[in-house]
Structure formats: structure tokens, C-alpha cells
């Protein structure tokens, strides 16, 4: 059966699917009993599956994440929820030192298969500590799979795949995508380790590489530039660690131009890593212009709406920039 779902419904359906089919799964995080239900993406899960399996937590990002690591070592499939990525910084030890390294340190004798769901939640004058997109930090860490869905189907299917994966996974969704809709088939379980970047819009003249909300911008840019005769191919990275650059290279060998969009900062960020991987691997002389990146300003998020308007990249800003590459 096919139907239309939104991105946030995709997330909700993934939770319902996993909690129904896998009795060893449980959810722990802040706000999962609140009427707000993490932007409606967890609506009613506590009522449907019980407060023993859908656990609202103390304001303790660190221990909750470590608890997920520990419970996952004994047959459970925990999903830890951080409704805002900025607060997850308080759980860095559990993520970086424990979850990501556990399998390696003990030579594969134990695998923390915890899923950590973290949300990028920007705009609305929320300011510097309620707006960060820190995915690049985590993509730096071997042992941690970092998933950033763009489409509603991926929001659903990659969340299920993350929870079923035997490795620790950081699943990052973006509030600015929650209303996006897509026509989808019934759920089919997929193997996360086999997933990689995908071309989500075909084109000839330039490759736009992005993940998550930046894919949305990329697709909008492509639509607009199409009317001006510039044909953009958009590659959705989907999983930023471990990173498979091959589909990106394949696209660039066709278009011979590339721009990387990222909602994070430039220095040591995802966009820089993608460009480095392209430059290392692409044949000399193939690129017709230097590879470019479009990221946010090198400054914390402002609060004033007038500053916010210029802080976050818009379709217009990116289109202007892409035109300079032709």
C-alpha cells in the first residue's frame, strides 16, 4: 500500500514499527511524555507502548546516553532522544569515548548497538545555544555511524535501520523538514551498512552535494536554476560516517562542477571533507571550476530576526553563488 507521509510522521511510524516488532527496544529521553511530543514526532508512543518502554527522563543528557550504551550491551535496543543537539554536548563522553570505541577497545567482544536521536532545531530567535548543527564533529569519530535523512521515506526507513544496526548510530533529524511530504511504500527493513549517498535529482551541469535540510535547499536551487537553463544534479549523502564518496565522484565525472551545501560551519566541517575527498580522488583536469562550498557564517546563531534572516542560507543566496560558477 502506498500513501503520503510527512517527515515527522515518518519518524513516528519508524518508532511505532520498532516498538511493535522488537520487544527489546525502548525509548529514553527528555520530553517523550510531554504534550509537545518532540515536535509531534513521538505523539502518543507512551500511551500506546507504555511508560516503561517510552521513558521520559531527568534533565541528564550524559547519564541517559550512557544508559543507552549500557542497556544495548545486554540485548536491548535503546533509542536515546536529545530533542535539541546543543544539549547533547553534555553527553560527549558517552558518545565519543564509550559508544564509538567500545567494540574496538574490547576487540569486538561487545557491541553497543544504541541509537542516539538528535534534532537540529533552528530559527525562531532561539539563539546561539538552541540552534547548532554539529554533525561534522560526530562524523569525525570512527566507530560511530552518523545518519542524516532528508526525505520522509529516509526519515522512516533509516531510523528503523539505525535501531536494528549492531553498531552505535547517531541519527540526526531536522525540524525544518518535518512538514515535507512524500509518497511512500510500506515499510521494508533495510540494512544500514549497505546504504550510501543517492542522486535525488538528475542534472548535467553541476553537482550539488548535501545532507538533510541542505538537500531541501539543493533541490529548490535546482528547480529555480532549471528555469535559467542550468541543470543541477543533487546528491543526498544520507550517511556522513562512514562516508562513501563514490556516488559523489560518479556524479561529478558527469557534471564536472561541484558545490557542497552544509548547514554547519566551514572550518573543519562536512563540506570541507567532501571537497577534500573529491579533490583526492578525481582525475586531474576534470573539474571545470574550483569546487565550492556554501556554509553558514563563522559565528554563533544570532537571535534577532533581522540577523537570523541573513545567518541561514536561502535559496536565493545559493542561486546567486552558483551562477558565479558559470
Amino acid at each position: 500500500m502506498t500513501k503520503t507521509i510527512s517527515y515527522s510522521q515518518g519518524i513516528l511510524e519508524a518508532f511505532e514499527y520498532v516498538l511493535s516488532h522488537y520487544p527489546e527496544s525502548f525509548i529514553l529521553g527528555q520530553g517523550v511524555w510531554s504534550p509537545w511530543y518532540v515536535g509531534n514526532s513521538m505523539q502518543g508512543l507512551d500511551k500506546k507502548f507504555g511508560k516503561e518502554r517510552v521513558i521520559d527522563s531527568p534533565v541528564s543528557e550524559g547519564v541517559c546516553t550512557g544508559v543507552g550504551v549500557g542497556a544495548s550491551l545486554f540485548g536491548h535496543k535503546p533509542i536515546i532522544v536529545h530533542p535539541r543537539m546543543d544539549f547533547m554536548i553534555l553527553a560527549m563522553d558517552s558518545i565519543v569515548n564509550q559508544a564509538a570505541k567500545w567494540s574496538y577497545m574490547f576487540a569486538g567482544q561487545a557491541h553497543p548497538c544504541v541509537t542516539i536521536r538528535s534534532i537540529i532545531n533552528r530559527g525562531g530567535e532561539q539563539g546561539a545555544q538552541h540552534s547548532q548543527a554539529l554533525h561534522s564533529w560526530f562524523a569525525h569519530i570512527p566507530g560511530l555511524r552518523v545518519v542524516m535523512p532528508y526525505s520522509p521515506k529516509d526519515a522512516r526507513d533509516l531510523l528503523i535501520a539505525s535501531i536494528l544496526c549492531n553498531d552505535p548510530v547517531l541519527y540526526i533529524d531536522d525540524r525544518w523538514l518535518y512538514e515535507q511530504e512524500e509518497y511512500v511504500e510500506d515499510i521494508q527493513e533495510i540494512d544500514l551498512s549497505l546504504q550510501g549517498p543517492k542522486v535525488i535529482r538528475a542534472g548535467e551541469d553541476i553537482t550539488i552535494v548535501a545532507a538533510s535540510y541542505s538537500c531541501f535547499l539543493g533541490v529548490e536551487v535546482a528547480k529555480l536554476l532549471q528555469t535559467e537553463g542550468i541543470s543541477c544534479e543533487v546528491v543526498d549523502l544520507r550517511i556522513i560516517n562512514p562516508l562513501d564518496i563514490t556516488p559523489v565522484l560518479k556524479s561529478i565525472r558527469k557534471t564536472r562542477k561541484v558545490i557542497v551545501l552544509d548547514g554547519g560551519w566551514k572550518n573543519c566541517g562536512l563540506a570541507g571533507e567532501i571537497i577534500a575527498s573529491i579533490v583526492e580522488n578525481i582525475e586531474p583536469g576534470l573539474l571545470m571550476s574550483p569546487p565550492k562550498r556554501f556554509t553558514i557564517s563563522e559565528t554563533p546563531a544570532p537571535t534577532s530576526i533581522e540577523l537570523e534572516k541573513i545567518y541561514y542560507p536561502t535559496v536565493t543566496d545559493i542561486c546567486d553563488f552558483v551562477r558565479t560558477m558559470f
Partner: protein
Amino acid sequence: MEAIRILEKPKSKQLGDLSDPEMFRHNLSINVQDVTKLCAQLEKMIFIRAVEESIAELVRDGEVKCPCHLSVGQEAIAVGIAQHLNSSDRAFGNHRSHSHFLAMGGDMESLFAEVFGKETGCSKGRGGSMHIYAGEVGFHGSVPIVAGTIPVAVGAALSAKLSGSNAVGVAFFGDGACEEGIVHESLNFASIMKLPMLFVVENNLFSSHLDICLRQPSDSTARFAVAHEMESRVVDGNDVVAVDKAAAELIERARAGHGPGFLEAITYRWLGHVGGNSDIDVGVRRSQSELESWKKRDPISRLYRALEEKGNYTKSKLQDFEKATQDLIKTAIEKARRAPWPKADTLCEHTYDEKVI
């Protein structure tokens, strides 16, 4: 009705005689019916000390190069607690965890191989002294981020509770770890969720070089358990009978679903923070005379003297056991020396369990 309430402050010197090495030197008081268990505990402590002293020597000789944090002098804590754990329990350690590993029944030969960095080690040479693992006996790993495994152990306890198992989670950590915030999150979480969990603080009065009095306003960490409404005991950590009794009470409560416990055991490490030397010159307020004094509060000789006094253990039995232990250790070291190194092409193995495209 009082709009402003002034709360009583805890005393800064709560431990009193428990932290005084001149005290608690007496032979342990033992029950006749416990003799078999006590003899086994004595031998376990002797065994752990002999292994650690051998590692200290290998470190001093430069043959073992990974950082080794030894718990010589602190053996009674691991042994007294392990008495009440089994292979389905979930214990986690820290940088100083050889004693926990061995007390729970971890394989001694695999420990030696691990500190040598060999493929036959308990973590196949990927861990060294600070990352040891013996899941088969209920010791589920140690790491050197001093409070790092505490929330992981709490998660193990939550898992036990959710699946209706009667296993307990155990976190071994030191007085220094109590200065990291995650300890408080963990105590709060375990308490509010009523988890089957035992928090064990081995308070050896020093974190690295620094005396507890220079790091905390009070010398006893059990005040944190009180703040989280948790059942707690403070014991002489060099008295295996006391540790055993307190652990039994707290673990039994936890297994029965009455919530977590907190056991603070006061002790002293005979060697420095890391390595095989006693590091008198490294520790602030750590002196040769203090060390000598603590050696008179030795957990092993206090139990041995008590058993010998009542004719339950003899000098010749002790010598035989020590000799047999040394033989086992010698063999283990030889095996570790001859064991293969991890192969170069396995460098990246185990980073992920599942495929990487």
C-alpha cells in the same frame, strides 16, 4: 512556617578513624562457620597482589609499556564484593581494575597477555591494562575515563530491570571520579528508577597525586548517596569481612528490587597513581611514613593472622600457596612473551561490527 531555612552542613572530616592508618590494624574478627570462604578470600587477595606485583616489576623493567594503574593494598574491596556477584551480573571498572577482573574470575593469563599487547590478551591487544574485559564472568569492561563506565553500568542495571532478570549492575570507581558530574546524574537516575545497581567507591584518599582534602570539602563520598536518598555503607576497605557484609546487604536489596546501593570503602594504594613505583615524591601529602603506616593496615595480613591464630591457616600452607601462585604467574608471563602480536592487517578490525562500504 519558615520562609528561610538554614540546612546543616556535613562535617569536613566525616571518615574519622576510617582514614587513620594507625587504626584498624587489628586481626579481623571472623566467624568459625565462614572459615572456608575466608580462606578462599585470603588466597584470592594473595593471588591478586602477586599478579599486580609481577606487573609492577614488568613495568619497572620496561618490558610492559602501557600505563598500568595497580591496586596493591586495595584487594579486599574487589574480593569482598565479587563474593556476591555471579557471571550474569554486570560489573564495570576503571583505569585501576585488574583486581576487579581477577576477583570476578577473569583469566590471569589473558590479563598478562593484554598488558603485553598480544593477540591472546583479554582484549586481543586492543585494550592494554586500562581496557580489560571478561564478559564471561560478568566483568563487562573497564575504561580510563574515570567516571565513564558509571552510566554504562546504570544502563546495564536498567536492562536487567526491564527484562525481569535478577542481575545487578556494578560500577567500581574512585574518589576522584566523584568530582565528575556524571556521577550525580547516575546516582539520581538509578535512585529515581529504583534500579538494581551497586555503586562502589574505592576511596583511597588520593586522585593521582592530590589528597582528597585538597579536592573535596569533605573526605567521604557517601554524602552523595545520602543526597540521592540511596542506601549506603561506609566501610574499612582493608577489612574483607566488613566489605563482604556491606556488599551482601546492598546487593541483596538491589536484587530484591529495593533499589540501588552505594558502598564507600576506605583504603590506600601502596603504589603510585600509575606504574610500579611507590611515588612518595609525587603525591601531595603522601609520605614514606604514611605509606609504611598504611602497610600495617594490610588487608591480607590482617585476615591471615586471624585465620592463623585460630589454626585455620598455617604458615606452610601460605608458603605453598604463594609458591604455586608464583609458578602460575611465571608460566603466564612466559606464554605472554611468546604469544603473537596482533597482525598488521587487523588494525581497523572491530571499529564497526557491520560492514563498511
